[in-house]
């Protein structure tokens, strides 16, 4: 595997402009990164961060502007040319083949290891071990990708990129799928790597930006609106610069109301995808007009609980009662009719049909209701009107309501799902990681809406890993651990430390 001839001392982007049909994605952007420096690139969804980085990584070509390395202007026509110059990108969605080993994945992208009729896997293993030892990124070259946790896969991506000889790492929202522990761990490792590398770090999470970066550049509508030293600014200032206005995430101030139980689970046992007992006798009660935060490290049964409540996963034993009726093992369509709203974890493939237009996705659960159809014909006019109204009131940013939903940014996809679920006027709403990977502005919007609908009497089960979010919004907090509810406590007076311990399974009586 070859490394670039001379190390990257300095990378300068000058006047980069990129236009897509109807959008100015990058507007005269100038940035620079020096060796050993971490530049945080922040901005809302659709601000142009990814476009800019794709230009740098050779995937797109700028309409105007230059990229220069160590003072020499370079043109990257393909990603491999950028790679050859030492620029490596770790994408938000990992680019790994699940049924291959780590070594095979690394060998896959490395031409030096491909000899005639012979793939040098031993060479790949050796290189992986060297790199992982050198950068303190432990990975097992013989493990299959599907066996690894998300955090481990992230490490494999990093090692892979470094094996290819990257000297400038571009990390696109590296922590969006990680648990809090994994995030802290990654931050530590990245910090140590900066002694010999430069990093461009794309993130929405300003506390991470604060911890990791030396300098921060803020993009808004494709242009750099701020570029300065991270240490000189508070996260609140950065948030204001990013969104263009003061951001205050709303809080749930009113105390818990004593209302009737709307949704309850008793002694629920549900199997996970690998056949193990993901829920192991779980008890939970959700009241009307409250937000119940379900805190826990992901993989402790949250997904299976949400699926079971939506009718998407078989309940082995135990019962689910919804509005006083036993709804255990009812098919999804019955749960939908009964008034259950569900914001699923996998928003790209479960929450929407990506190739369907925005207006079609907004009626995904109601296309055969009397409002949107007569006998078996769709009322296209009504569907379009519904979409225009929801686009307006939920601030869904899309070129038109006929745009394929899958092409929107994560935050806007989430707004489409939220709009649909809320517009159905559900009695209860299960929201799984509703703000994962969405920007501050969208997060503020989603939180505000959830609180507003709580006031209208909807019971909301908020499943999240962000303690901030749970503490801000919940009336009560339930901590899930290994498929059971470890403890339910009122939100008032709960602390991060207390919840952190509970999430790790430690109960002090």
């Amino acid at each position, binding site marked *: 595997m070859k490394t670039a001839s001379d190390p990257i001392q300095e990378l300068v982007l000058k006047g980069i402009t990129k236009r897509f*049909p109807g959008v100015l994605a990058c507007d005269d952007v100038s940035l620079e990164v020096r060796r050993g420096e971490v530049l945080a690139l922040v901005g809302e969804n659709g601000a142009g961060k990814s476009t800019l980085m794709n230009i740098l990584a050779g995937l*797109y*070509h700028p309409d105007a502007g230059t990229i220069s390395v160590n003072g020499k202007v370079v043109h990257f026509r393909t990603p491999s040319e950028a790679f050859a110059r030492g620029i490596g990108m770790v994408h938000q969605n990992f680019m790994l083949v699940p049924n291959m080993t780590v070594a095979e994945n690394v060998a896959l992208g490395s031409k030096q290891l491909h000899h005639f009729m012979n793939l040098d896997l031993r060479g790949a293993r050796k290189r992986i071990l060297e790199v992982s030892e050198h950068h303190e990124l432990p990975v097992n070259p013989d493990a299959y990708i599907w066996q690894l946790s998300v955090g481990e896969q992230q490490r494999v991506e990093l090692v892979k990129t470094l094996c290819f000889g990257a000297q400038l790492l571009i990390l696109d929202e590296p922590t969006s799928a990680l648990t809090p522990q994994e995030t802290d761990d990654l931050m530590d490792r990245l910090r140590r790597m900066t002694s010999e590398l430069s990093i461009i770090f794309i993130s929405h999470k300003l506390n991470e930006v604060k911890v990791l970066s030396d300098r921060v550049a803020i993009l808004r509508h494709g242009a750099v609106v701020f570029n300065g030293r991270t240490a000189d600014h508070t996260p609140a200032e950065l948030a204001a610069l990013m969104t263009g206005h003061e951001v205050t995430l709303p809080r749930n101030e009113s105390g818990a109301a004593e209302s009737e139980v709307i949704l309850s689970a008793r002694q629920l046992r549900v199997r996970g995808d690998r056949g193990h007992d993901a829920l192991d006798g779980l008890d939970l009660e959700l009241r009307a007009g409250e937000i119940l935060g379900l805190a826990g490290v992901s993989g402790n049964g949250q997904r299976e609980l949400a699926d079971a409540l*939506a009718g*998407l996963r078989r309940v082995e034993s135990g019962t689910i009662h919804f509005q006083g009726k036993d709804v255990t093992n009812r*098919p*999804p*369509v019955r*749960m*939908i*009719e009964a008034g259950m709203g*569900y914001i*699923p974890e*996998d928003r790209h*493939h*479960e*929450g*929407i*049909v*990506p*190739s*369907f237009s925005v207006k*079609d996705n907004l009626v*995904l*659960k109601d*296309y*055969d209701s009397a409002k949107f*159809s007569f006998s*078996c*014909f*769709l009322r*296209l006019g009504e569907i379009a009107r519904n979409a225009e109204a929801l686009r307006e009131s939920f601030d869904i940013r899309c070129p038109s309501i006929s745009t394929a939903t899958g092409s929107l940014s994560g935050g806007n996809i989430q707004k489409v799902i939220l709009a649909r679920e809320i517009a159905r006027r559900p009695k209860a709403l299960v929201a799984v990681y509703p703000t994962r990977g969405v920007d501050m502005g969208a997060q503020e919007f989603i939180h505000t809406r959830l609180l507003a609908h709580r006031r209208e009497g909807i019971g909301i089960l908020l499943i999240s890993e962000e303690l901030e979010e749970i503490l801000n919004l919940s009336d009560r907090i339930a901590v899930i651990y290994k498929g059971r509810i470890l403890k339910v406590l009122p939100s008032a007076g709960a602390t991060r430390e207390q919840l952190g311990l509970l999430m790790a399974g430690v109960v002090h009586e």
Partner: protein
Amino acid sequence: MNKVKLLYRACVVLAAALAAALAGALVLRTIGASPLATYATIFTGPFADKFGITEVLVRAVPLILVGLGIAISFRSGILNIGGEGQILVGILASTATALAFPGSPKVVLLPLMLMAGALGGALWGGIAGFLRAELGVSELLSTVMLNYIAAQFYTFLLRGPMIDPSELQTGSGTPQSMRLPRAAWLDRIVPETRLHAGLILAVVLAVCVYILLWRTTWGYRLRAAGAEEKAARYAGVHVERSLIAAMLFAGAFAGLAGAVEVSGVHHRAIEGISSDYGFSGIVVALFGGLHPAGILPAAVFFGVLLVGADMTQRSAGVPANMILVLQGVVILAIVSAQMYINNAYALERFARLFRRRTEQTGAQS
């Protein structure tokens, strides 16, 4: 940008056509035929007279019907390559029905026969749908196997139980059924040609399929299940049921194609009647973008190729099998062109080249 895109697409199509023509010419040269004369015959021959034009449409009818069914199944997430078997079962069912009620009036017999064909095809397709939905059997496997079974069953019936008794009497033993009663014939819509009312049926059904897929709740369900199964389940769609429904529809269209072919063209079940329409129908459907509005012209285009091929055989002296080779080359070129047309990177590269060119000429002038 849009102008560049259009230009790009035109260039890709032209390049593909040119590549196909060159590759074909090479093949034709090696067997000593004149490429130019052959091409001229293929593309002008069918339009020379009334007969050629109607023949093109006669070929297009089954292609449209099969293509529509394929579009429904592909849109619903099921890769149905069993059109061939479904056509054969449709032919058997419709022929048997027509022969079973020889004395019935046309208003009864003709619809009954066509419906029997559709039902037969639906049954055959439905088997694959059921196996996929309930037992997880890959439809690629089951439809191909069902094609074999149908082909053998078809031959068996035409040589045994369904063979025309007069063939046995005269001892010639041609494997074909009795001639259908006149009441089971589709009317000819252009006198002295073979063009029959099946064309009208096919066009009407194309409109129906458009309405079904894009204007009804059924179509919404089918397309949702096909585009993203997980999301469809989440939205309360019974995905298994929709897979079976899709295969019933697809089979029904293929079966109907068979029935129409018997009733409109041959008036009896004979061997080789399906002429691989079950497979060309897939190409027509894909070439037409899995949309009725694209399938209609695509089917006519393939009709031209088929008829033109027949004509070359007669006028240019190119053997029939050579024409199959040419068709293969054309199909490969078309499919590759479609890959290129939707390739954003290639478009980007083209746009850059184009801009540089225009800038240069701008600077010179």
